[in-house]
């Protein structure tokens, strides 16, 4: 069963809303960062490689 009587109750968390939501927001943001960093790193690595190969072909 859902633990809250209304959606407002869910958001305010009985006066603990600021603590609960900031802990979840920060935690999930840092998790997302951990997931995105290796993807960006891979793209940068492949960009560098293709740029270098294009330059070598022109020489």
């Amino acid at each position, binding site marked *: 069963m859902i633990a809250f009587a209304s959606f407002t109750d869910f958001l305010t968390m009985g006066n603990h809303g600021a603590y*609960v939501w900031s802990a979840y927001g920060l935690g999930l943001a840092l998790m997302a960062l951990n997931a995105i960093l290796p993807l960006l790193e891979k793209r940068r690595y492949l960009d560098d490689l293709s740029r270098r190969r294009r330059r070598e072909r022109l020489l």
Partner: protein
Amino acid sequence: MNWTWFYKWGSPKWFYSMSGKFLPWLVTASVLLLGIGLIWGLAFAPPDYQQGNSFRIIYIHVPAALLAQSIYIMLAGTGIIGLIWKIKLADVALRQAAPIGAWMTVIALTSGAIWGKPTWGAYWVWDARLTSMLILLFLYLGIIALGQAITNRDSAARGCALLAVVGVVNIPIIKYSVEWWNTLHQPASFSYSHQPAMPTQMWLPLLIAVLGFYCFFGAVLFARMRLELLRRESGSRWADAEIARLLKDRI
């Protein structure tokens, strides 16, 4: 006992192809488990009779703190394997897991601080559990910095492995800090020998969130290790073939 799996998993080429097969399953499992565990914990678990709704921070805090310690134990394990058998893959695993461990420690410390304010009246106290977790963060940062400071790859691997192995002494200190010293921190939520002191509606979503965090770690670690292996092994036939395939897929 058949040890061939040990040597197979030590081969970069083998690891690259196997991890590629596991990766999508780990991603799916972590999205599902984290989604179920966190939504259940946020909206469906009953409020705590003393802490009210602030206790819901447990579903972020405990998995992150458990994972932060498990990753450090893994670092020490790969450190020993790297020091004894000189397996390159062990060094790749150690160095790629360290930043994830550091981030998990940051999540555990910040969510704990936010939880501390309504529960203890302070964001931070110099208590044994909190201080030993801060030391864990410094150990992670030390390993990352050491790896970046040493340019010779073998020396960097040896240095990081040694620091990881020596630092593991901090893990039992974190675990038993709540028993050895007077502390504000509550005791462990899970134990092997006792039923959890929470109702099922509270600990089951916590268990699911913990599993989700571990799958998430597996997925991120594999993604990081695969890229690092391509970097280190470029020039070998399998890595160059894989790089060519990746470059062709982009156009």
